[in-house]
């Protein structure tokens, strides 16, 4: 089996590779820096699309708060706001929409962009041929989505403040809660998306996941108005916890125990998503 080894060819000057033969080795780097490298990829990618993305980030809250908060809200407020906690519909709606649109961003980021990377462009397969590991790709994308959520949620809060829909300085804490809500969805759905081989299954997430959650998790009306048997289901959804905590903070009525409960629930979902994603990413990309 062992053939005579050919003598190593010495490097010729002027070729494509200047540094031969090899002497310097990349120094060992901390594991998190691999995730940051993947974050840089998404930021490079984002440079192509940021204009359209910024426009919808500003426009969406304007449209929703204008149409539903002001338009529909005028009707609602005429009929009494006792079930809303004696605040105007606009003030009630804004924090719910904040959490719900964070979910929307999270779901959007964790479906087609991830599926495209593993199936259409195969850029994930290219990336794991570098020092990056599958889990680094996952974490790098979560970092990117975290940044995007921070930006979008900040814009949302600013727009809501311009609509005078923010009544408490505690609202500033709704920002990290919204980001956490979005990331919890991102991690769980992304862990699943990376296992998919057909893009048609992604539509299921929107049809049976995103839309019902958006409508029935307390965004537009209190969950207490739902039939009693369905309420426990609403309480189990991560979005309800995000909506409830954002609303408590924006209204300035949050209590420490309930804040811990809601944030804790979202953290558990996020942790479970990361745990699952570490495995599904590895299984899909190391075959």
């Amino acid at each position, binding site marked *: *089996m062992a053939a005579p080894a050919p003598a190593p*060819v010495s490097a010729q000057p002027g070729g*494509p590779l*200047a540094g031969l033969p090899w002497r310097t080795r990349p120094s060992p780097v901390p594991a998190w820096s691999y995730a940051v490298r993947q974050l*840089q990829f998404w930021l490079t990618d984002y440079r192509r699309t940021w204009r359209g993305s910024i426009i919808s980030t500003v426009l969406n809250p304007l449209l929703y708060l204008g149409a539903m908060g002001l338009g529909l809200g005028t009707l609602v407020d005429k009929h009494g706001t006792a079930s809303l906690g004696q605040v105007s519909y606009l003030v009630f709606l804004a924090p719910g929409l904040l959490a719900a649109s964070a979910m929307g961003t999270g779901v959007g980021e964790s479906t087609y962009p991830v599926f495209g990377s593993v199936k259409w462009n*195969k850029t994930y*397969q290219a990336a794991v*041929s570098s020092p990056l*590991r599958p889990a680094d790709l996952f974490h790098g994308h979560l970092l990117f989505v975290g940044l995007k959520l921070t930006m979008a949620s900040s814009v949302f809060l600013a727009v809501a403040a311009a609509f005078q829909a923010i009544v408490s300085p505690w609202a500033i804490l709704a920002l990290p809660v919204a980001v956490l809500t979005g990331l919890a969805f991102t991690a769980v759905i992304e862990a699943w998306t990376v296992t998919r081989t057909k893009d048609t299954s992604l539509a299921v997430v929107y049809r049976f996941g995103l839309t019902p959650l958006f409508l029935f998790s307390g965004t537009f009306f209190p969950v207490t108005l739902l039939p009693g048997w369905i309420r426990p289901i609403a309480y189990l959804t991560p979005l309800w916890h995000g909506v409830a905590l954002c609303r408590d903070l924006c209204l300035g009525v949050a209590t420490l125990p309930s804040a811990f409960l809601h944030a804790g629930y979202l953290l558990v979902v996020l942790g479970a998503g990361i745990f699952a994603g570490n495995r599904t990413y590895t299984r899909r*990309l190391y075959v």
Partner: protein
Amino acid sequence: MTTALIRARGLTKRFGSFTAVDGVDFELHRGEAFGFLGPNGAGKSSTMRMIGCVSPPTEGELSIFGLDPVADGPAIRARLGVVPQEDSLDVELTVRENLLVYGRYFGLPRPVIRERSDRLLDFVQLADRQNDRVEPLSGGLKRRLTIARSLINEPEILLLDEPTTGLDPQARHVVWDRLFRLKQQGVTLVLTTHYMDEAEQLCDRLVVMDAGRIAAEGSPRELIGRYSTPEVLELRFDPTVHENAAEKLAAVPAQRREVLADRVLLYVEDGDAALAAVRGLGLDPLTSLVRRSTLEDVFLRLTGRRLED
């Protein structure tokens, strides 16, 4: 005694009950161009993916730079370049951005990437397209960009999985030329192919794979010497007399006779003498060709099948 750059012993990869790679042994040394030759499904790509540390071996030993691909994946991959079978470029980005993104994966500083990109884009003759988006580029240009990308970290070993499959002849020759220059520079090339001419052009040493096993190993010249004759006489008969003629040819002294669907191959020392003997039997082939043996003949001999079937 140089230590092996890549060393495999009993290397096995199974997917469920299917065994893609069935206990192969090989060793690779610095500066070599080493090829895995075999038809589709022979286990070439699975072997390459294990060497690329993106596919854990099911059984057996594998070491690359003396390191363990499972435990030291990032450290090994930092020193490898990979040209995958399917293009995996980011088609939304420009040619140059693809190199930038990939260079960052290796933790290279931007000025270093810029400088290397200039050099590599010249090398693969893509400098004039550097700011174009990748999507509309032709297959040949994408392949060349993929090769440039695989060199951004100045790898010690370049893994190429069917580097010219799907390219037109002209594009293939450009790729071969670039790979040959890399070899001259001392880059160790490991490639898979089901083109015998590619293996003959590029490989110092190769293994012939079939059904997950290594059927033979050696330099192209050694393999031809060991498993084939110096010359081959190819005969094509009218389809109506093809079988009949094939039987009669048994009378022609030849080391081996292969009856294919459309041709008969006679493996002989002297092709012209054999052709004279064929004519002496009163057989009148439509066409006849005397040629030197190739790796295709070696493969046919070892497996009874043609490479590109």
